[in-house]
């Protein structure tokens, strides 16, 4: 398998000039994920504004694939509706686990389609997913926290 199938131009661009990098305020949840196989790490924050993903910020150490992947993630989900963003995460996961046989939808996944080739390199799939799994975890926590706050507020009112 050729290297260029893995290291698409888009990926190298994101790697060299990552978007949304650096931890920002405000945020509703922060998580820390690790790829135990190699030690790559990410700290990621999610900020929700009602049902919209208002911001995703992160601090990460890792390879080109994991860095580019979280950069692309930010581009894709920031500003999106929560359900829509979750659906995109699902789609990206399906693409990564598809053994290179899933045809990605460029209209929906945009730059993330560049990762289609990664699915053929099993050793790198975890790299590509590191940021996406962290984002999902943080978002689920943020939603849960909001629900808890809301119900606490309701109880106070009642």
């Amino acid at each position, binding site marked *: 398998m050729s290297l260029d199938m893995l290291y698409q131009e888009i990926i190298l661009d994101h790697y060299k000039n990552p978007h949304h990098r650096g931890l920002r305020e405000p945020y509703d949840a922060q998580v820390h994920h*690790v790829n*135990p*196989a*190699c*030690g790559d790490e990410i700290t990621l924050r999610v900020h929700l504004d009602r049902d919209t993903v208002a911001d995703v910020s992160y601090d990460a150490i890792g390879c080109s694939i994991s860095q580019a992947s979280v950069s692309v993630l930010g581009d894709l989900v920031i500003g999106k509706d929560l359900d829509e963003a979750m659906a995109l995460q699902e789609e990206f996961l399906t693409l990564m686990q598809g053994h290179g046989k899933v045809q990605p939808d460029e209209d929906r996944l945009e730059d993330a389609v560049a990762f289609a080739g990664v699915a053929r*390199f*099993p*050793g*790198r799939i975890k790299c590509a997913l590191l940021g996406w799994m962290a984002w999902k975890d943080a978002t689920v926590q943020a939603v849960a926290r909001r629900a808890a706050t809301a119900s606490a507020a309701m109880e106070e009112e009642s």
Partner: protein
Amino acid sequence: MSAGSRATYDVVRVRKDFPILSRRLAGGDQLVYLDSANTSQKPQSVIDAVSEHYQVHNANVARAMHQLGTESSQAFEEARDKVAAFIGAPSRDEVVFTRNATEALNLVANVLGLAQGDLGVRAGDQVVITAMEHHSNIVPWQLLCQRTGATLRWFDFDDDGRLDLSQLDELVTERTKVVSLTWISNMLGTVNPVSQIARRAHEVGALVVVDASQAVPQMPVDVATLGADFVAFTGHKMVGPTGIGVLWGRRELLAQLPPFLGGGEMIETVTLERSTYAPPPARFEAGTPPIAQAVGLGAAIDYLSELGMAAVAAHEREVTAYALARMREVSGLRVLGPTEAVDRGGAVSFELAGIHPHDVAQVLDSRGVAVRAGHHCAKPAHTRLGVQSSTRASFYLYTQPEEVDALIDGLDYTKRYFGGS
């Protein structure tokens, strides 16, 4: 056995897959291998799978990112998929590779001893086993009880080798934390009513551990409906390699349990001050796993699946019924365990009046017939039946009726040999 499955199960053809079965022994005797409950023989496809792995794909798993590493990891994880499918595990992450069934059982006993909170076994708790357990399902619980201050109790069994279920409600109570029992006894051959016992155990909030070392090789298994929380078995008894065993555990339980051994592969992150641990199954697989052995076990499962476990079970039942019938013809022979092939596996232990099992086995061996003599790692079961040791013949998917005949002839000869002088 239905005519249909009989037509498709061709033991003569099956035997051709096992190179050792055509071996000649000292004196030119044909091997008659009746010791499969001890360890099974291996088909060429399993032997080849192991060799090919070393010759073509060998690399360490998980941590290697190169082509060989990828191939090796895939082969290893594919074996996990095969095991999961074979036993009906709801998730592949519920399959933990161990060295053997013994380690699987020790793993459960240890982590239950170490667990914080509700799952932990502590002073005053009770652990229930049976009097027909293999030592590997006795000693780990004795050690657990010694280390925690819990108490060990057990089901008795009757002279036919059937568990005394009248004790069920009195033995398995609110104080019971764990019930651990064998599905099929390796000594008596008894098939125990696991689901019934599991139901009672779950009523009182106890966990159920099943030693399926003799069951998984012999019959279709579906852990999802069995009622057990943990199931242990061993590769070498199911036409697979030595050096590998399996612990299946319910995902939500495994997820709550602390690690057993520490080291590479089972960690999330390590500092010198403290470490965090990977989710199951990795949490319970410290160090380089038995990689080639997992690949071999995968090939063993392919082999068994192709034969069909229903057909394997039917064949086992048929051979066992034939053996029990022929044994009834041998005067002075007393079968220890069920004497009918009902709820019964393919291991038949027996006494031959006045002749020590060592001597029986020795004379049989001089005729190429390989059986086991001793306590078969089930000393308490022997004690219960008032015998010090026994001879055991055990059958498997490659056993033919002619081999049972050779056993019977050998027993007659043994009696003459020791009786005649």
